[in-house]
């Protein structure tokens, strides 16, 4: 019977006010986690033995990279759901997530380059990890471009969904690239099979920042989804009521 409850929110009409009520909470949580995370990152976490203060860029770089991959999976999930079931909300959610995902991928590439120059001695190399993350960024841009190029939202959703689903192949490639091939990028510090090879307070700062990025992404995606709902359903009765 729970299922029916969930399906109720699958229509834009009832999801619109729900999202509106949730957004302030996510913004508040994003601010709290962000302040706590930055405080730990700058004042509590110790200096790294090898890299000095420069390592502190990981507090933005790693959460941004995680989000760029995770948002893509969520976006592809919504897109796939829309393609399979033809639900209206799915396509809107996928469209709402894409710009935030692109932002995260860009942030990850940019902070990585800033760290790479002093530490590695280069802004960029064409190694498997860096290249596959760049492809992820292009997938986001391609998805946004393809969706905006088609006027009919239902056809735009379909075309975008196929692109998004095909691009899913790239996600395990990004994640495992440092294991499968010789890369300049180091292996993962945090993984599921063993304890993280990082000082406790550094890890705490990174996890707090990751939570802040999560909350920010949800808040922004919901805000964008609300705007898309109004735009796409502007001829319906509920939108007229919602805007009044």
């Amino acid at each position: 019977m729970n299922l029916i409850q969930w399906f109720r929110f699958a229509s834009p009409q009832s999801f619109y006010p729900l999202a509106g009520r949730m957004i302030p909470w996510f913004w508040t949580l994003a601010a709290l986690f962000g302040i706590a995370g930055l405080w730990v990152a700058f004042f509590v976490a110790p200096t790294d033995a090898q890299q000095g203060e420069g390592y502190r860029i990981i507090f933005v770089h790693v959460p941004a990279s995680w989000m760029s991959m995770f948002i893509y999976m969520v976006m592809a999930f919504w897109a796939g759901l829309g393609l399979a079931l033809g639900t209206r909300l799915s396509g809107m959610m996928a469209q709402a997530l894409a710009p935030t995902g692109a932002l995260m991928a860009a942030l990850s590439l940019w902070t990585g380059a800033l760290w790479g120059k002093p530490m590695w001695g280069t802004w960029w190399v064409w190694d498997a990890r860096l290249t596959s993350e760049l492809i992820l960024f292009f997938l986001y841009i391609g998805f946004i471009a393809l969706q905006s190029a088609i006027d009919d939202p239902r056809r735009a959703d379909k075309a975008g969904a196929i692109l998004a689903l095909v691009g899913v192949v790239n996600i395990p490639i990004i994640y495992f690239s440092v294991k499968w091939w010789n890369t300049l990028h180091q292996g993962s510090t945090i993984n599921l099979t063993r304890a993280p090879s990082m000082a406790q307070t550094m890890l705490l700062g990174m996890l707090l920042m990751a939570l802040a990025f999560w909350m920010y992404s949800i808040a922004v995606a919901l805000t964008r989804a609300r705007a898309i709902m109004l735009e796409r359903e502007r001829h319906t009765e509920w939108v007229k009521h919602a805007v009044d």
Partner: protein
Amino acid sequence: MKPRTKRIALIAGGLASLGIAATFVLKALDSNIALYITPSEVVAGKAPQGNAFRVGGLVKPGSIQRQDMATHFIVTDTVKEIPVTYTGILPDLFREGKGAIVQGRMGADGTFVASEVLAKHDENYMPPEAKHAIEQAQKAQQKGMSQ
């Protein structure tokens, strides 16, 4: 079959075949995706003849020698060693016992002449005190073993 079930099956089948295709392509490209080769591979003759390539490994401890602007060091994968010379500025993380990737050509005398040196960082992040403690422990262990 209901059209919806058919559509889901079609999407699932499409994704599965795409995944398999991607796996084969990546397997075929394997050696081309690698950013560098190891000293063992160079010794085994896998380096492209006459072309520039990258070698990656550890900078052998005690092997760095500076001569004016040039730096001589040995890159090793603990099995084989390649002597390298490089003229220029080295990155911050270039250290003895740490990973490095050198790009250049093999000289006639078996010395690798590098045009670019990149330092490879490992996945460990720790404060200086922790690093000091680990080094002390390793020294104590070595002493115990040699006695």
